[in-house]
């Protein structure tokens, strides 16, 4: 093993056995898995805790069945012990959703009585639809807690439509015609490849991939670049630097450190991918098994009665939806050029990191402690942050001028190009960006080497840009 190999080994091993590395290795996949599973799980949770909303519909137009007054009296007397029979309050015009169940009260019940009912039961809110609702579209929602935003927007949306229908009815339009004109549009965008092949595109997932790729690169460059800088400062403040550079060349030490830390980053990335996929597959396996069991159990009862029939159909609907999502996902996975994405991720990570790490090493060499790094950190971090700030603009228009230049300029290209790649990038752009990045890597490493070899032997001197410029020009 050459000397640079010995240095790489030390830099790698001392970092990999650190507690912080272990913690990051464990926390990272948990976070990533949580990000992937979390939304689905939360949606699942919401389903379970559907909210009951009491409704006084003075117009009488929003319900099909009215609540039996005997039932209501019983309910009021026994309070919580008697559950509402929701099948009896099935409505068409204000349908229940996954999260909301509407319970219609007697249309003539007074508001104060209804409020009293709301207070004494577990119901979430009370909706009053006044009799002059069509002419004066103003309704009140009484709730015990701050009403969730989703409820009001759902109600507004639904009721607006109803008023529209009512108004059209008044003008003499047949409600059946209205029903027939209702259409759901699902826009499916298709990319026509230059080869003439057609490919369905998946904008949302593509966008997420762009964000994830750009953000990961940003995160890795920052985290591991800073580690290189701290390592250099440590050697300087420890005063071990002169002992080491009497054995190896400063450039070898710098490169050994940069490569060693890069390997730590790659190791961490690999562990993240492995652990995340283990966690995600385990959790999804655990979550999906009981669901399919429920469906199996539910299926035979469907012949027995109307109510459970509805429930099963709903469930079948849900599983159908899941099936479509899985199919879509599979289609998506097949449509993505994973080789290109992963290959370019590795490329932009490695060269982007190497370029920035060299700059971070130069900064570390020029200062005596971390507090002094501020003034030099700024110009190095600005392009990195800029790449992230421009994310929205770039994702909105991944082929625009801004996206193009930011993915060509080497200091931002690793982040921005990773955002563009999932959308498809002309080969010429990609090749140009890569060539410029590699050349910049060589240039910045050369430049940093010059700063580094002077800087590491400078103690107790406040260094400014003028000074560093002299170091660079100094043969």
């Amino acid at each position, binding site marked *: 093993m050459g000397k640079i190999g010995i*240095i790489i080994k030390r830099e790698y091993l001392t970092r990999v056995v650190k507690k912080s590395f272990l913690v990051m290795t464990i926390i990272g996949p948990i976070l990533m898995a949580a990000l992937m599973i979390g939304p689905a799980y939360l949606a699942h949770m919401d389903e379970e805790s559907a909210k009951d909303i009491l409704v006084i519909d003075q117009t009488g137009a929003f319900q099909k069945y009215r609540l039996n007054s005997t039932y209501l009296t019983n309910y009021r007397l026994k309070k919580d012990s008697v559950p509402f029979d929701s099948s009896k309050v099935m409505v068409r015009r204000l349908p229940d959703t996954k999260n909301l169940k509407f319970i219609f009260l007697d249309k003539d019940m007074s508001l104060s009585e209804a409020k009293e009912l709301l207070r004494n039961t577990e119901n979430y809110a009370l909706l009053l639809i006044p009799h002059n609702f069509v002419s004066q579209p103003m309704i009140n929602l009484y709730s015990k807690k701050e009403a969730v935003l989703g409820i009001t927007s759902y109600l507004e949306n639904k009721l607006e439509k109803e008023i529209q229908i009512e108004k059209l009815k008044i003008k003499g339009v047949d409600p059946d015609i209205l029903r027939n004109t209702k259409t759901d549009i699902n826009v499916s965008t298709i990319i026509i490849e230059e080869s003439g092949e057609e490919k369905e595109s998946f904008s949302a997932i593509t966008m997420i991939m762009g964000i994830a790729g750009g953000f990961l690169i940003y995160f890795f460059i920052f985290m591991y670049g800073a580690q290189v800088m701290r390592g250099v400062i440590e050697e300087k403040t420890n005063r071990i630097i002169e*002992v080491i550079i009497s054995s190896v060349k400063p450039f070898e030490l710098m490169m050994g450190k940069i490569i060693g830390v890069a390997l730590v980053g790659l190791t961490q990335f690999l562990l993240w991918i492995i652990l995340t996929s283990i966690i995600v597959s385990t959790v999804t396996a655990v979550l999906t098994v009981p669901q399919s069991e429920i469906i199996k159990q539910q299926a035979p009862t469907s012949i027995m009665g109307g109510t459970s029939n509805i429930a099963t159909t709903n469930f079948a609907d849900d599983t159908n939806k899941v099936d479509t999502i899985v199919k879509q996902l599979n289609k998506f996975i097949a449509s993505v050029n994973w080789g290109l994405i992963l290959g370019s991720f590795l490329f932009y990570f490695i060269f982007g990191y190497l370029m920035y790490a060299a700059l971070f090493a130069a900064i570390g060499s020029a200062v005596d402690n971390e507090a002094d790094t501020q003034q030099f950190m700024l110009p190095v971090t600005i392009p990195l942050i800029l790449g992230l700030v421009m994310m929205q603009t770039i994702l909105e228009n991944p082929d625009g001028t801004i996206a193009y230049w930011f993915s060509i300029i080497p200091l931002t290209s690793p982040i921005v190009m990773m955002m563009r790649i999932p959308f498809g990038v002309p080969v010429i752009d990609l090749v140009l960006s890569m060539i410029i990045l590699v050349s910049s890597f060589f240039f910045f490493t050369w430049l940093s080497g010059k700063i580094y070899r002077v800087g590491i032997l400078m103690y107790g001197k406040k260094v400014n840009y003028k000074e560093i410029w002299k170091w660079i020009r100094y043969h």
Partner: protein
Amino acid sequence: MPERMTFLKIENISKTYIQHQALDNVSIDVKKGSVFGLLGPNGAGKTTLIRIINQIIAPDQGEVFLDGKKLLPEDVRNIGYLPEERGLYKKMKVGEQAIYLARLKGLSRKEAVERLKYWFKKFEITAWWDKKVEELSKGMQQKIQFIVTILHEPKLLIFDEPFSGFDPINANLLKNEILDLKEKGATIIFSTHNMASVEEICDDIALINNSKKILDGSVKDVKASYKSNRYKIVFDGAINAMQLSLRHQYKVLENETKENTTNLILEVSDTSISTNDLIASLLPLGKIRSFSDIVPSIDEIFIKVVNENKPAL
């Protein structure tokens, strides 16, 4: 002592930093198996010269030869360097760190472990092997630094201010080890502004001031050349001052009688007078207790030479 071969030859080295000349045409010969003292005030250019020998920086001009051959990058294997600014990785374990530094000098892991065991035993620090450096005292860390410097058995050893920060016991241990290494044939360069240590262990010295070499030679020769021709004679009781004034070969610089002892300092103007003649002429004066040659210490020579070479303001 037979004339020794030159081991390290520094030829007309100049080095200019940004707006500051650190070395100006400096040439030095270090003889094989000798201890060479590189002296000079702070900022004179000693550390720059040492860094050039260690190939940490390159000279603008001039060349360095080791054992007759031009210095090559591979020669780091033959040089052991204990810098003035020295330290260790605080979070790393002692043994592991020593192996790492030894391997950077070109030892195999096996060689490094074997030799380290020997030295750790010798310095009675075997128990520290698995301790982190930050757990050790400064003196302990310096022992490890010393071991790491000499572990690859270099032919040339360079110590920059080796005793700074050492307590007297460890300083003495270090001094004995350095002399031991010399016995074993190593050539040693010793950079310091602490002159007291120089006279004891150095064979030759060079004095650098304001980036120039202003004096070099063997300790003996340097002292001889700054010999003052002064003598100090101590008498019991008072002396016959009348007789003293009659002599013309010397000048009386001091003549003081205190508590039944007379101290007499004479400067001989005529260098042809032998010590024996001088003593003979002094015998009638009184009862001589001691007679000694006043030789300037390296310290005094250092101050004298540096002051003589002060740039005119």
